[in-house]
């Protein structure tokens, strides 16, 4: 993969965000990200195929048929094949694997992949209705007003009960702090200008079940974001065509996809078993283990989801994820730097774009393009990993990368 690009993640936290003023729509975000990639790869003529990942513009923006925006990005894309894919918050990585499969099938040498979501068109209380579509609609009636925070609040509650509330809450607050500190290093991050001094104290804010959910506060949650990310997936032939050197690209070493029954309750609320299944496949295909990872972009839609992902990865035993996080192991200088530009909590979570944003971040890190957010990549640990999740551990894609 080459030529990644992220727009700003727009929403509360950004100084230029004003909910009362007109803002860019889907098409503007797609255009910004798409053109930025085309500009780096020698133009639209080099593209064989286009994929757009979007969760639910049909409700946020009353817009469907998003593949039709590719020729709007660049006239040179007219009459080229294009497709839109959807898998809730796991949409972005589904778009990536759609492109990867085309490359593997040799039907394309260059695939342009864009992920996009524009969510600030409605207030959060109505956004919660829309995002609830990531779960089973028949559960909506008995679900929480804030449906997904409710789901992960239940997971946090189960975890508290089993392994202790105090250390888990402290680890969640630490997760929040790490996310914001990393976001402050990335100019496109939604929390880039966050200046709060004591982030952990803020993260420890007591949840308020009357206005929100039982076991999470708002700092435990990812952001409501508008944004797009894009990247080009290329074969070796495509790489040459676009005029890129191998060392400026990242290579897909393996990917794991796993799906779970959307109508079924999780077997164990304290375990992300679908994530674990997808990770197993990705590691197996790549032929590596977690000790060889330089960095992970994980799907921390909620702080507790981040901690559970660390356990699914096997960095900590079941029940010891909080200790692992509290010991500083997931910070940017820790054993395994996680979400080095802030993740979903710090950088932002434009749902359909998130999976693509993760790939762009890994590309930046492994090829030394991450600017102030750059971490050190050691020769013995050259791999990057993304975990992108749709719904409550239902639609999973994990991808392992290495510098080309």
């Amino acid at each position, binding site marked *: 993969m080459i030529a990644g690009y992220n727009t700003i993640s727009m929403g509360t936290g950004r100084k230029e965000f004003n909910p009362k003023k007109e803002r860019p729509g889907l098409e503007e975000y797609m255009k910004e990200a798409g053109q930025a990639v085309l500009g780096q790869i020698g133009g639209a003529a080099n593209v064989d195929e286009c994929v757009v990942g979007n969760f639910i513009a049909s409700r946020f923006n009353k817009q469907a048929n998003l593949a039709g925006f590719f020729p709007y990005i660049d006239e040179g894309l007219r009459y080229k094949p294009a497709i839109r894919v959807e898998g809730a918050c796991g949409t972005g990585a589904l778009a990536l694997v759609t492109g990867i499969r085309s490359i593997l099938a040799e039907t394309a040498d260059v695939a342009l992949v864009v992920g996009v979501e524009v969510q600030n068109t409605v207030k959060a*209380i*109505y956004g919660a209705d829309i995002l609830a579509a990531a779960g089973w609609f028949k559960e*909506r*009636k008995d679900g*929480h*007003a*804030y449906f997904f925070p409710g789901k992960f609040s239940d997971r946090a509650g189960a975890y508290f009960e089993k392994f202790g509330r105090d250390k888990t809450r402290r680890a969640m607050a630490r997760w929040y702090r790490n996310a914001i500190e990393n976001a402050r290093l990335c100019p496109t991050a939604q929390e880039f200008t966050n200046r709060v001094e004591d982030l952990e104290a803020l993260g420890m804010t007591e949840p308020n079940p*009357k*206005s*929100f959910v039982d076991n999470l506060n708002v700092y435990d949650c990812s952001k409501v974001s508008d944004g797009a990310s894009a990247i080009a997936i290329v074969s070796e032939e495509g790489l040459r065509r676009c005029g890129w050197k191998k060392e400026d690209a990242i290579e897909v070493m393996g990917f794991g996809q796993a799906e779970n029954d959307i109508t079924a309750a999780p077997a164990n609320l304290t375990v992300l078993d679908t994530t674990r299944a997808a990770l197993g496949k990705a590691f197996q295909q790549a032929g590596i283990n977690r000790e060889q990872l330089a960095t992970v972009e994980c799907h921390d839609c909620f702080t507790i989801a981040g901690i559970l992902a660390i356990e699914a990865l096997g960095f900590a035993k079941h029940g010891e994820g909080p200790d692992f996080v509290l010991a500083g192991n997931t910070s940017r200088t820790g054993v395994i730097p996680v979400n080095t530009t802030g993740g979903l909590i710090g950088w932002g979570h434009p749902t359909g774009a998130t999976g693509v944003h993760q790939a762009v971040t890994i590309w930046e890190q492994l090829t030394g393009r991450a600017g102030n957010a750059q971490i050190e990549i050691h020769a013995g640990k050259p791999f990057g990993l993304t975990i992108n999740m749709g719904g409550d551990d239902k639609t999973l894609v994990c991808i392992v990368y290495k510098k080309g």
Partner: protein
Amino acid sequence: MEHDDRFQNVTVVGAAGKMGSGILLLTALEMADQRLKPENTDKYYILYALDVSQKALSGLMGYVRSQVLKAAEKKTVQLRKIYSHRRDLIENSEIIDQYINDVMSIIRPVTTISSAYESDLVFEAASENPELKVRILSDIDRNNPNKPWFFTNTSSIPISYLEKEAGIEGRVLGVHFYNPPAVQKLVEVIKSDKTLPELADFASKFIKNLRKIEVPSNDFAGFIGNGHFMRDAIHGMNVAVKLTSEVSFPEAVYMVNKVSQDFLIRPMGIFQLIDYVGIDVCQYIMKVMHPYVKDEDIHSPLLDKYLELGVKGGQNSDGSQKDGFLKYEKGRISGVYDPDRKEYVPVNELAAVCDTLLGEPPASVVPWKIAVANPKKDEFFKAYFKDMINMDTKGALMAKAYLLRSKEIGEKLVSDKVAFSEKDVNTVLLTGFFHAYGPINNYLTQED
């Protein structure tokens, strides 16, 4: 009659007014909450929105709907539980819509006072005119067979006067909301000697359900809120008049307003506050208070003069500020009225001279908005006013005199037994006037 039952038939008098519309909204929300309890499903709830103006009533319904929407969006978590039996309402948006319909279906906009003849509870929010209020209360009581309870929103008229003149002994309580009622947390509650304890208990429960702060006041004209505000305003106006020996009148108004806002770190300067409440309303309140206050002259010739000139202040129906002592453009002060020339002098023509005369506030000054959000407010104000103690710029001297006068007014409200405690006085100013600190403090008398 239980709490819920008393709420089954209610009238708000003056419902389309500034205060009445807020009271109507809050009452409607409370009644809807009662109605939506499972045990009350077969009961009818009716809330008459009584006002003289059809036009104002239709505007009122739009206002109430928009506010109910806001309230519903804030409490959707609870609403989902309340409507959990309604299997057809699935998404938040559907639940919010249903709630709005349920609240609005309680309200009946009417222009005929006879609607109130069947109510068990009457909120009176007519204009601050003793004769008018007495006429309304006695008319309703004469024609209403239910021995209704009356809650009056008077901000200054003694409750004992109203109950005696209207012949409703024991059944009237002062329930004084602050403007705008939907937002302001404070409710002053005033009993007469005869007010039945049930009324106060009922009001307490209602106020608590609204998550507002109840402060009791004695039944003395002006109560705590206007007792402080009117004297504070008179002080400000006196200082301005005195200043005219040195500067022009508009300059004096500008300077006093600036000191009372920026130097004292209050949400508004005193002249802006008078405009906000309305020059006519302030004059009316002073008129009501005047005969009851023996040791002070609660009266302002300046207000009389402005009203004679037709300068009234107050708000437009959309909530925007009308011009008064000051002129407003997009919510900002843009001019100061010159009563001699009968026109507004642009602020930028006098600001530079006045600001130089006043000098700077202590360097630690911050805008009110920042100060009020400071979790360690008390420490901040201690340090800020300590910095001011030894300053002798004109602005600092005026600010210190102002602060001491405000404290003196507060203490007198306690010694005159208008307020039950110093804490109550401070609570009224903190919550009803959004001050960042109470007037009864020791900020200027701190030792090292």
